[in-house]
Structures are given as C-alpha cells and as structure tokens.
C-alpha cells in the first residue's frame, strides 16, 4: 500500500478522497492535514449557516466516522511547515509523515486590502467557519460594513442582515457583481438588497479603516465616514501557494499543473483553488470537482484529463434569484434577446452569436437557468427556436409580453396627471363608473385636461382596466426598444422615481439591454432634467457633437465657438481668439448669426489645447453644439442707441450668465431687443424679449429655421428681475415637460400657450420652477472646456491611428 498525504481538507480534496477510496480503497494509506481544526465541510454553504437557514452539522461532508471507516489518518489543527522532496516527507508541526504521493489542496487565502487599519480587531475576511462564527457572534443591532459586492460579499451582507445587523455594502465598480451580471441585473439585485434594509454604495473606494485597537469606522476616498463595529472584507481570494513555492515547485499565479493535475514534481499533485492550469485559476466549485475526479483517476493509474468548462453562477440569498452563465459582453455580431416583466421584477437577457446561445443573465425567475446553461455548454443551434427561446423550455405557443405591464403595475396612488394631481386609482374609479373613453375620463377627473403630456398614460390606464373594450389610439413610441411614447416615459420617470438608465430599462420593460441610439439620448436628458442630484449625465448617451463638445464638420474637423456674453467682447478676447486661430492653423474664422465668433476647421486632437488656450484668456465654451442654451443675441440698448428703452445688452448678459450650461430638450436661442424696432430679431427666437418704455414684452416659441414662427406673447412685465424670473421659469417648464428634440414652438403647439401662461402665472409655482432650475445649475453650469482640457481626459481626443500617412508601396 502506497502512502498518500493530502494537505488541506477543502472541497476539492474531500471530493478527491471520496472518488479515490470508492474506486480503490486499498490503493493508498491516506494522511490528511488541515490547518483548520476540523475536517471537510461544504464551504460554499457557509452563507446559509450565517443566515441561520442551515446548521453547521448539515454542511459537514465528512465526519469523524467517515474518516475512521475509510482509514484516513487525520492531522487536523496542524499546520504543515515544510516539505522535504528529497526525503519525500511532509513536515507537520507535530512531526513528519513520509509520502509516496503528495497532494496540495491548500486552497486560497482571502485578499485583504492593505489599507491603513486593515489589521484592527473586528476586520475579518469571509472564508471559513471561524469567520462565520465571528459574524454570528456579533450582537444584533451592530453596524457591519462589507467591503466587496461580489458573490461572497453579498451573501455575507444578507446573512448579517438576517442576524439583525445594520449592513452597508461597499463596492468599487459601478454595479454589483459586475463580473457575473450586466448593469440591468445589477440594478435589480441592488433594489432587492435595499428592500432588505441593506445599504449599497457603488463606486466606493476604501481609504482606511479607523479605530483605536478595534474597528470603529470605515473612511472612503470621497471622505464619507461609515461607523462600523465589524468590517468584512470580501474582495477576492488569492491562491495559497507559499508552501508550494517554498518546496521549490513551479508556481506562477498558482501551482502549475498539467491536465492530470501533476505539478513540476512527478509525485506531487495539486487540486482546487491553489491550482493554475493553462494560465487559468479556479474559484467556483464545479471545476474543482472535475479536477478531483481527474486526480483520483490519475492516482490509481487510470487515464483522465482535466478540461475547463463553461461556468454558471448563482447567489445564495433567499429570494434573490439570479443566474448568469457564459459571455454577455457586447461585441460585433452579437444579438440580444431581452425579456422584462417589471411587475414581477424579472429580467432575462440572452446573448446570441452565430445562431448559438453564448451567454445568459436571468434575474427574478431563474427556473430555466440550467436549460439555457445546457444550450450554452453544448453550443446548440438555436435558430429554430429563436423566437420563443427567452420563454424557456416550457413555452408552448404562449402569449408575448404585455406592453401595458408597466402601467398595469402602477399602484393606485401613483400620480398620472401631475397638473391636476390625479392618481391612477381615481382614473380607475371613473372607468369603473362608466367612463370608457379619454374624453369622459378627462371630463370626470381632469386627468390630461391641462398640459396633455399624460394623455398616453391615461389611455393606457383605460386599456389596462377595460381590456378589449378600449381601442388604443396608436401613440408614437420612442423607438423600437419600447411601446411607450416620450410623454409616457417622462411621466413614468417622475411618478415612479426612476433615477438611472438601468431603472428605466427594467421598470418600463425595455426590449433591449441598454436602449439604442434613439432612446438613450432622450432618456439621458429626461433623467438629468428630473433628477439633477441623483442622476449622473452619461456622455455615452449623447450625440457626437455633445460628446466632443464641438460641432463636427463635413471633413471630420470641428468648430470651436467661445461664449461671448450677450454678444459683447473685448480687445483682449479678440486677440486671444486671433492667436488661437494662428496657433492651430484655423482655416476659417466666421461671425455667426448669434453674434459669436466661430473657428472652423480645428483638428479633433487639437481641441483640448485650443480650449486650454481660450480658457486661459477667460473664454468658456459657447455650447454651440448642445441641446441647451446657445446664445442670447442683443442690441446695444440704452447705452448707445437713441431709440433704446431699456438696457437690453445688460439683460441679455444677465440671462446668458444665468442660463448657460443647462441642458434642454433641444437647442434654445434667446434675444433681447432694446425697442420694438427689434434689431436683435427677438421675435423669431425660442424666447424673445422686446423692451418697451413700460417694461419688457416676453414672447416664446419663435423659430427661424425650416419652420418660421413668430413668437407668441407670454407676458409683459415691468422690471428686469421679473423678466429674468419668467424666462428662467419658462425654460424650466420646457425642460420638465417637453419631449426630447422638440423645440419650444413644437412643444407649445402640443400643450398650448394657455396652459403655460396659467402655470407660470401662479407665482409660487413660478418660483418653484426657478428654484428647480437653479438647483440643476449647481450641477450642470460648468465649463466642459475646463474639464476636458486636463491631460487625462485630453487623450480621448487623440486619433487612434492615422492610416492616411501610411506608405503606399
């Protein structure tokens, strides 16, 4: 009988012993070392033990009786200090054991972030039963911070929360479990955890852990301080290879093995997380078991070879049903099939390439996970079942998703008509009382009787309540990603407090994973307009001009327009502009219709530098490219003109300084004329102010493009302050209600000037609009030139490769 020594009683080595002793119980006399004072248990089930859903006894895979019955000599609680490969002995703390064959099953060590304070008492990893017990022994009501929003961290967080602790999860990436989940599923997971009372902070980087002797708080890079009685680090694992390295085995990232699990020493093998095979490391249990099987066969002289397979992931948090497998990154030639059921919190995304399924992310309903996994693993041709694939194997010609699901799921107290404060329940009552069309509902409830943007929603409530008895008029949908109209999306973003793109995609049942080039800019605008403090602008959801902060020209160069407040400039500014034109070889310098100077023909890679130069002279971006405030055109007014009635230039400058930087549904142009002679052409602007002796006439909804429109009179006010207040309030009302890419005149045609006048005529409402505008400006009134001219960001403007210079030989 040969002597086999196994170091480490983990899941891989436990499975190895099972296979080995079953296949040939007489082949080896086995000695099993384990530094933990206990034998094999199912480590992946520690999370249910932590939560109380399982007992430790239930997850023990091999108890003392099993070892005794199989003649395994156990050296538990004893660390191996060295290996003498020449004498073929393992040196334990309590003596040596000779071997004929040796197996490393040393597993991995948790990675501890080496930040200041990581060694304080109360900072633990989540790896073994001792860590688990430490968490279990923490008093309910204590505050725990879990660093790491991966599988292990979230399981720890959920378990701690069930134990009655106040739990915060810190995660470095933008969404939870970013290696296994796409942002949509990450959003649902986060919502699920927050429903449990677990606070989640993403993009949270730990600066240090504070405390005198024991942990007291965690401090983040942004200065946030989170009080903590317990800190659990679950940021990853590292193969435990010190002993192997010390023994002189070949160790790269982990112990290098061949397909038979043999190390660089023919009599020494390794299995589990301490192994590196073909450059790959292994952390999930399935490949570990495969390795154990292969090694058992190798040890009894049978032929076997290890080959890594596709893996799938599940999270062991009761009620959080998620599943992911395969590859779900974006790529050319890949198509997505997306199914969402907002009412039930379900998201399914399948990634198809060349008629095979290559990735799947399921959230909320994972019943078909293993079926999808089988299709991925086997590379099954799915072309025949593509149309019904997402519904799973049980699909038998069922129905497609209900486009009304999002509206049907709204609670009775959800506001449908914001103008008149009508909630869904009131509309349903009216319908139940016999109102079966829009007109009757409007008459009885006032819903959609004012600005009208909620009309689509009211119709959907009718349809959801009446079913076939109501014929839906066909509303123009945003794009093919959804059946909802722009107005519906705007209204739902507000009424359901949707504050991220992922929230919109999921809760409104988008058919694509991340929207498309049509809906993304619109949704990005709606979110930033409605939730300026919560939502962060997404440059990837903008058109190229807004991404580059310059207008792209037909030859691929850009135009640069510095802001000139109210059309006023100085000799110094003109000199700086002239210098910049010389320095960057600008071929064309043009005065624009909006009283600005346009430098045309600037190369993309020169943009950050020219901006920096213009910035240095005190000039900021003129936003000549943006869906936002463009220019305020003025005439010279009372300062110089004989006919001037007011300081039109001063008012123009004041308005421009107040409004610049704000994003709007479409571009916004203003003008202020000092008298009715209207030299600033104010009567064809989005907002045009004409000064008269008695004050200011404010007109709105003018245009002078493909459509030519004269402004409609909004109001006449006596003072400059009032003129500014009304203008700002009008712009904010437009920002809050118009659909994306509607100029004010188009929006006014839909909602009616009456409603706008009525709304703005209400002084408290007007003030509230101004307050909301100013709040938004605290975030968005920044000069993009100054931000982007800095070195790190400037590199985004460098050309990737200039193929035109390549020799043509």
């Amino acid at each position: 009988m040969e002597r086999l020594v196994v170091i480490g009683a983990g899941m891989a080595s436990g499975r190895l012993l099972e296979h080995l002793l079953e296949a040939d119980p007489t082949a080896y006399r086995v000695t099993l070392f384990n530094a933990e004072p206990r034998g094999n248990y199912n480590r992946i089930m520690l999370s249910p033990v932590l939560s109380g859903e399982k007992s430790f006894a239930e997850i023990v895979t091999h108890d003392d009786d099993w070892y005794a019955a199989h003649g395994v000599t156990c050296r538990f609680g004893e660390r191996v200090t060295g290996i003498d490969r020449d004498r073929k002995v393992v040196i334990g703390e309590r003596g040596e054991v000779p071997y004929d064959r040796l197996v490393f099953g040393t597993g991995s060590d948790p990675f501890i972030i080496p930040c200041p304070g990581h060694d304080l008492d109360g900072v633990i990893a989540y790896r073994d039963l001792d860590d688990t017990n430490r968490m279990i022994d923490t008093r309910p009501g204590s505050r725990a911070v879990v660093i790491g929003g991966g599988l292990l961290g979230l399981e720890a967080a959920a378990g701690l929360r069930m134990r009655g602790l106040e739990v915060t999860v810190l995660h470095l990436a933008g969404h939870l479990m970013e290696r296994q989940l796409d942002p949509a599923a990450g959003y649902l997971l986060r919502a699920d955890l927050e429903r449990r009372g677990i606070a989640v902070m993403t993009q949270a980087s730990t600066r240090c852990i504070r405390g005198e002797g024991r942990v007291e708080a965690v401090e983040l890079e942004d200065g946030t301080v989170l009080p903590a009685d317990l800190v659990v680090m679950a940021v990853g694992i590292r193969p435990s290879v010190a002993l192997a390295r010390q023994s002189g085995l070949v160790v790269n990232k982990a112990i290098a093995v061949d397909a038979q699990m043999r190390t660089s020493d023919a009599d020494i093998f390794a299995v589990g997380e301490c192994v590196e095979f073909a450059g790959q490391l292994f952390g999930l249990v399935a490949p570990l078991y495969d390795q154990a099987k292969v090694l058992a066969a190798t040890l009894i002289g049978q032929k076997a070879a290890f080959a890594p397979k596709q893996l799938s992931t599940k999270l062991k948090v009761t009620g959080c049903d998620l599943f992911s497998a395969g590859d779900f990154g974006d790529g050319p030639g890949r198509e997505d099939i997306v199914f969402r059921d907002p009412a039930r919190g379900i998201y399914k995304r399948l990634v198809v390439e060349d008629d095979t399924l290559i990735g799947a992310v399921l959230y909320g309903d994972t019943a078909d996970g293993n079926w999808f996994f089988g299709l991925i693993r086997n590379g099954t041709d799915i072309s025949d079942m593509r149309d019904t694939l997402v519904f799973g194997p049980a699909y038998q010609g069922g129905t497609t998703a209900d486009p009304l699901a999002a509206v049907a799921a709204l609670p009775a107290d959800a506001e449908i008509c914001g103008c008149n404060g009508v909630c869904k329940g009131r509309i349903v009552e009216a319908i139940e009382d016999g109102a079966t069309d829009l007109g009757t509902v409007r008459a009885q409830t006032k819903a959609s009787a004012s600005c009208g943007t909620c009309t689509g929603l009211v119709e959907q409530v009718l349809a959801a309540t009446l079913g076939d008895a109501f014929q839906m008029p066909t509303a123009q949908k945003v794009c093919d990603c959804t059946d909802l109209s722009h107005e519906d999306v705007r209204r739902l973003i507000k009424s359901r407090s949707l504050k991220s793109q992922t929230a919109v995609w999921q809760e409104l049942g988008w058919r694509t994973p991340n929207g498309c080039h049509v809906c993304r800019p619109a949704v990005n605008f709606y979110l930033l307009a409605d939730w300026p403090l919560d939502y962060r602008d997404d440059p990837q959801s903008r058109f190229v001009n807004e991404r580059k902060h310059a207008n792209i020209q037909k030859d691929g160069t850009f135009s640069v327009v510095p802001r000139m407040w109210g059309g006023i400039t100085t000799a110094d500014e003109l000199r700086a502009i002239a210098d910049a034109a010389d320095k960057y070889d600008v071929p064309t310098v043009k005065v624009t219709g909006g009283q600005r100077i346009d430098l045309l023909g600037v190369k993309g890679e020169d943009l950050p530098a020219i901006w920096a130069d213009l910035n240095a002279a005190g000039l900021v971006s003129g936003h000549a490219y943006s869906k936002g405030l463009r220019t305020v055109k003025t005439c010279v007014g009372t300062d110089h003109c004989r006919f001037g009635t007011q300081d039109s230039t001063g008012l123009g400058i004041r308005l421009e300084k107040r409004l610049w930087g704000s994003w709007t549904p479409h571009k916004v142009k203003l003008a202020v004329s000092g008298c009715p002679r209207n030299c600033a052409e104010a009567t064809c602007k989005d907002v045009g102010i004409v000064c008269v002796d008695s004050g200011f006439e404010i007109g709105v909804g003018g245009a002078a493009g493909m459509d030519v429109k004269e402004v409609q009179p909004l109001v006449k006010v006596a003072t400059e302050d009032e003129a500014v207040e009304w203008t700002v309030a009008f712009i904010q009302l437009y920002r809050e209600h118009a659909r994306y890419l509607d100029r004010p005149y188009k929006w006014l045609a839909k909602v009616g000037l009456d409603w706008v006048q009525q709304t703005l005529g209400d002084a408290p409402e007007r003030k509230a609009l101004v307050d909301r505008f100013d709040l938004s400006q605290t975030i968005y009134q920044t000069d993009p030139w100054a931000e982007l001219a800095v070195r790190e960001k400037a590199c985004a403007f460098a050309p990737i490769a200039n193929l035109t210079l390549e020799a043509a030989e």
Partner: protein
Amino acid sequence: MDTVLENGRTFVEVAEIWTPDGDRLALSGGVYGAHARFAEASRTESFAKGEGLPGKAWAEARPVVLKDFDGSYFKRTDAAKEAGLTCAVAIPVFAGKTLKAVLVVLCADDAERTGAIEVWAEAEGILTLADGYYGAAKHFEWVSQHTQFPKGQGLPGSVWSAQTPILMRDLGSGYRFVRSESAGQAGLTTGLGVPLQVPGGATFVLTLLSAKGTPIARRFEIWDARAGRTAKLIDGICDRDGPLWDPENAGREREATVWEGPVGRVLGTGLPVTETGAAARGYAMMVALPIHRGGELSHIVAWYC
C-alpha cells in the same frame, strides 16, 4: 406503508381546508386524527363571509388566531371542547383578489405542548406580532410580543423582504436567531416563515416554530413552483432523512410534477392539501400550503407530522 407516530404528541391536532362554494365556505378536506366527533361536526358545517373563524379570515383578508372558543364567533365550540381542542388559527389563501381557500389548524393542551404559530403584521415599515399561539412557551410569547422586525431582519423580516418562504434551523442553539435565547429555553428548534399575500396590499408573515418534544412538523419542505407544471424542492429538513436539499445537485433538485402526489395537487389546483398515512409519506398528517405572488403560484410549503 404504516403510519408513523413517532411519539404521538404533536403540536397541531387537526388541519382542515375550507374552499369557496358559491358565497359560502365548504369543507373540502382535512385530517382530524382521533377527533372523529369534531370531524363529523365539521362536515355538516359551512361558513358565509364573516361567519365563524374561516369566514372571518375571508372577510378580513388576514390570518386569524383564536385562543378562546367560549363566547367567541367560533361555531363548533362544543365539539371542539369535547375533543380537547383549545386554539385555532385560520390562514386565508388568496391568489390576487380571489380567495382560493382557508386553512384552519387546531391545537390542544396548551399547558403541556410547546411550539408557536405566529402572525406578524406590518405597520409603518415594521413587523410586529399581530397574534400568536404558543402553547406552554409563555416566556417566548412575551419576548415575541416585545420584538419588532424591520425588513430583512430575523425570520419574519427576511421572509417579508424576500417574499419567499424560509426555513431556519437551530433556533436556540448558540446561533443568534434574534429571539434565540428564549427560543432555546422553550426548546424551539426549527422555524418556517411564510409570506401571506392578501388583497389590499397588507403584509403578513406566518411563522411556525417547532419544538423537538411536541413538533409542529418532523419534516419541512419548500418547493419552488414558478415553473408552472413542475415544482423543485429548494430546501427541507427531515428528522428521518436529514437535510432534503443537496447543494451539489443544483439544477437537478427533486421535482414534483403537476397532479402527482399532494404537492403535485397543490401545483395543479393552487389550493392547500392535507393528507394522512401513505399519501403523507407515512406521517399522521401532512399539510401543503400554496404561496401565491402577483396572483400566481410561486412556492409550496409542506409540513409533515
């Protein structure tokens, strides 16, 4: 298969199912054990909405605990007293707005038997004990009356946030089950928490806490029924068979097929099922309770005693 009476003393004596029949509730099944007279009295009974215990659970759309029959709305008081039954809990099963059935369990000898059937109700974001029957576990009853659970905490709070039945082990043995100290003293070992959906959006969580000596169940099962025609056993524990789940078997869990066996019948009908003897794996009583979510069957919990 012989019926196993492991020590004869269980916490629940009778389980019965009342289903709507027109505008009344009629008996559609039940396990009465030795209480033939009470069974007889029940068979001739029916309840209008608001009438008797089942009718009250229907009308008020919430689980109801009744600890004293004398002078109450309980209609079968004489027969119950004769059988020694002292307490009843009625659990309405709704699918969306539709009442599918009312499950009634009755207990006896509250001075000698330990266990707990609790109803937790949400108010202002916190779960508090709406009512409960504890038998002899008086101190634990007192502790429970003075314990509250926010979302995600403890067995009731976790069931509430997960909207999924949860089985907890070793309630009193060193693990910090929020009420573990008192649970340990009372001998409570295993807890099953079940989310109850009722019309109107109120939140209720039912917990069954079982003690070794007078168990509510010797076997607990939780089935995931969302696939529709089959259900998967996702957790369970059994005094005889040990853990009923196998983590290494993920994806190949034990399955029940629609209409096959008591769990299959729940899958087919969406109604609770009671069984005894061979159909109940040889136990004297099994109860399978459907959990509906968003109007559809999502889980089935079963307990055997």
